[in-house]
């Protein structure tokens, strides 16, 4: 079964790069949706349920940690794995993301192999929507 993914980043460049990388991973990726910030992500996921969320941290309106907290606090979305893809590599941000329930953490700049390796273990046990 293909996994639908939501990519959240205020940079259109990074969203395009992640779209390309996701298609190159060889993993069973279905629809890829996009959002430019946490608020838009919540709106998109309400219309298009996904199996996985990839999100930046530093974004306007609602940042990635706020989005993560919101998803993990929602009975509907709390089981959706969320992977942080960010320049924020400090221990405080990483530990905060782990505490909030992030399934993974990838630092920018990233390689396609790093993304594939991180997602391979997450997408295998995906449950039906």
């Amino acid at each position: 079964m293909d996994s639908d993914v939501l990519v959240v980043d205020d940079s259109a460049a990074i969203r395009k790069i992640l779209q390309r990388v996701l298609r190159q991973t060889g993993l069973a990726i279905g629809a890829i949706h996009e959002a430019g910030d946490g608020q838009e992500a919540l709106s998109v996921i309400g219309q298009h349920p996904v199996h996985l969320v990839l999100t930046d941290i530093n974004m306007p309106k609602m940042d990635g940690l706020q989005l993560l907290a919101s998803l993990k606090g929602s009975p509907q979305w709390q089981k959706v794995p969320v992977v942080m893809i960010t320049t924020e590599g400090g221990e405080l941000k990483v530990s905060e993301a782990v505490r909030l329930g992030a399934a993974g953490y990838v630092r920018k700049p990233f390689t396609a192999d790093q993304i594939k390796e991180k997602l391979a273990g997450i997408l295998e046990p995906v449950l039906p929507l």
Partner: protein
Amino acid sequence: MNLEKLITDSMCAATANVFSTMMGQELPAGEVSLETGSAGPNDGVASFIGIAGIWAGTGNINCSPSQACRICSQMLMVEASAVDADVLDAVAELTNMIIGSVKTDLEQHLGPLGLSIPTVVYGRNFRTKSAGQQEWIAVRYLWEGDIFTVKLCLASQERSGHAHAGLPHAYAIEV
């Protein structure tokens, strides 16, 4: 190691790593200098990102329009022949990744720091000036026939003790 060397080494390593990882480009060694005052007239693309915390400052990248297009083409694997929204976005993200990596390196020595959303300017004959008085560390690379510059200024915001705004003092602090 003093802070100036730490920042310089981190800027060089971060720039080389981002170019290599995201664009498949190997940069030659950069030329490092310290700059004071406002920069002269600029042509091209300038990107800025703020750093905040006990230490605060600004990261800056300057490049030519053709370099900006090349950055976009290499990062997004698309043809870019003119500076448009995609090109500016690619330069902004490049700035975010380079200065963000430096920020993460510095946090090990200076404590938690925040990073703003980048702002990109494109035009001719424009000048930029920071309200701060501190010096900038600048690393210049000859890449694709033009000069690509990464700059950073950073100063302590503490009002007590011996660490005050102004890089000559701030950079002398042993870390």
